[in-house]
């Protein structure tokens, strides 16, 4: 017997409610103490952590649920929200269960997170995973490979035994499946954005940062099955792409404000979770395959320069493939890489006469009225001019 529309909604709401709860969950439970490895965005090779039998835990900040009190004494108010609220989560004890902490030199603020962590939580053995700034060098894959092997050794010491190639290949299989499911989710969103809102897609992807990937795969499979049978009458809204969610995450209210009047048909939200764009080869040296995929089969973000991926071309391809007519170029407050790209892309969009809207956000935004007026005016200009 075919499933009814009401049953589809009930089941989907159940899945999304669980994702919503997981997305807000910052506290690491006693049962997971020392079995969780925290990392600061954008990208981290989770497969190596997974192969060690540990759980990777992406630190996407505290959102609008955390009041920054203790972190004010460690980080200036002119630093982005995600660094401040992540530090607050450490200081208020929410992250006491972390068995390791990795930061990356993606920007001045983020690269100092390891130092801040080292002073305040030395027992968590904070490290920097130095992903290359120059990915176009012939030595870049080798460089990433060496860093990944170093990570493999650190984790092996934590668990008391080596991480085998077989274990790594098994993890690659799990994550390849996860990538296929995520790609299917975004393909569906591009094809029929009324059927899957950006907030829904976001919650489904973000849930993956809070439990093991096998479980996340199951969740995504169930969601995709339900979404395939879902039908929502599309309103008449312009199709846009959204940029600016690669590191600090915009409040859900902001995405909803945009989606009230636009279909966001592609975005860079949580791009680190979707960084590798194809399957990682499951034969050969698994660490090499992962390192090579980071360089050769990967997305783009403002924190990395890659001569093969001109930012303008990446945006153009994104818009073309998603059949978007305009772009929303946002950036988190005090985010230097994001704001740099915002300026460069705005100039280019002006030159190409492609409609766009510039927005700025921070985790603790509370008022969205002014933004709603901006976005509504932008949407009207796309629909009626």
């Amino acid at each position, binding site marked *: 017997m075919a499933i009814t529309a009401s049953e589809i909604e009930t089941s989907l709401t159940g899945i999304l409610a669980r994702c919503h709860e997981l997305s807000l969950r910052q506290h690491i439970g006693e049962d997971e103490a020392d079995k969780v490895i925290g990392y600061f965005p954008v990208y981290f090779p989770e497969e190596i952590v997974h192969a060690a039998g540990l759980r990777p835990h992406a630190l996407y900040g505290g959102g609008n649920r*955390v009041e920054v009190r203790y972190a004010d004494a460690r980080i200036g108010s002119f630093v982005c929200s995600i660094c401040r609220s992540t530090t607050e989560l450490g200081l208020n004890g929410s992250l006491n269960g972390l068995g390791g902490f990795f930061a990356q030199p993606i920007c001045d603020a983020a690269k100092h997170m390891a130092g801040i962590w080292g002073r305040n939580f030395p027992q968590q053995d904070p490290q920097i995973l130095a992903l290359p700034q120059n990915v176009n060098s012939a030595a870049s894959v080798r460089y990433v490979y060496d860093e990944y092997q170093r990570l493999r050794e650190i984790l092996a010491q934590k668990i008391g035994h080596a991480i085998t190639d077989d274990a790594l290949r098994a993890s690659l299989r799990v994550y390849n499946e996860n990538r296929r499911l995520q790609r299917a989710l975004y393909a569906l969103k591009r094809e029929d954005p009324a059927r899957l809102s950006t907030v829904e897609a976001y919650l489904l992807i973000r849930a993956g940062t809070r439990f093991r990937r096998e479980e996340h795969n199951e969740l995504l499979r169930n969601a995709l099955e339900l979404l395939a049978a879902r039908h929502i009458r599309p309103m008449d809204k312009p199709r846009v792409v959204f940029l600016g969610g690669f590191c600090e995450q915009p409040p859900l209210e902001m995405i*909803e404000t945009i989606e009230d009047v636009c279909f966001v048909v592609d975005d860079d939200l949580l791009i680190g979770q979707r960084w590798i764009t194809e399957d990682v080869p499951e034969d050969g040296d698994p660490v090499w395959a992962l390192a090579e995929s980071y360089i050769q089969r990967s997305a783009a973000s403002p924190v990395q320069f890659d001569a093969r991926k001109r930012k303008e071309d990446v945006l153009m391809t994104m818009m073309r493939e998603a059949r978007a007519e305009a772009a929303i170029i946002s950036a988190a407050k005090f985010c230097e890489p994001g704001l740099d790209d915002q300026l460069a892309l705005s100039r280019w969009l002006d030159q190409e006469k492609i409609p766009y809207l510039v927005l700025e956000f921070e985790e603790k935004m509370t008022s969205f009225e002014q933004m709603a007026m901006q976005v509504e005016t932008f949407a009207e200009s796309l629909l*009626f001019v």
Partner: protein
Amino acid sequence: MTNAILVAGIDIGSTYTKTVLLDETRSVRATAIRRSGYKPAAAAAAVFDEVMANAGVAKEDVTYICTTGYGRYMVPFRHTQITELTCHAVATGYHFPAVRTILDIGGQDIKAIRIDERGRVRAFRLNDKCAAGTGAFLEKTARYLGLETGEIGAYALRSERPVEISSVCAVFAESEVINHLAGGIAPEDIMEGAIVALGGRAVQLMKRVGLEGDFALAGGMTHNLAMIAALESKLGAPLQLPPNGLGQLNGAFGAALLGLRRVERLVAEGRAIAAPAGDGDIKPRRWSTYVSSPSAVSVSA
């Protein structure tokens, strides 16, 4: 079912909900107005049913539905929504290409809008904080004097010596009205005084967007001859009024015009237009306001 293009514009205002049904020749096929009440979505559905009945068409005959006004997001069967500023600008520009400044006195706010020669919004100012600057103030004054809203204009025109209502705050202005009544001032002089005071505030708002002629008045106040006279006196220039009884329907007419423009574009591009939503259609949940179980959202140790 007909093959003609029909577009509905629905303006859900704080006091009244208005609708206009346009055909592809931009002719008004039917209109309807009713009080918004405390359930704007229900008022929009009722006024839409009424306009279809007035035009003798069915829901499936309506190609496209545009909503505007403060309740524009509350109508689930809409195709899209548009701000009332844009709707007033487009409607006024359509009737009067020479108009550059529009005034709309609504139940809960006043809007002064400056437009260009193509009916596009160049600047606008709203007064929505002070009740003394809204149509609701006039309605309240009328109620003290035992008048219906529709009687205000004609009643005030009988005034020979309008009294000054000096307070800028609606609460104090009401006290003034009561004092004047107790002092034996003729009710029509009090009503006219309130109209002159409100008109003065409206013209001040228009000055803030730049007083560039021609001028137009939109909204329910176009029925109020005393207000029109007071505004024209303050401006020292005539006010253009939407023709054929479309004054109060100006926002809805603008929404319908824009809807028709959108339909023409979609047809030209060969794109499909979805049917209006039915009662059982799914409304996406707002996850930002979803409350998870307390144990799941704990963020402190």
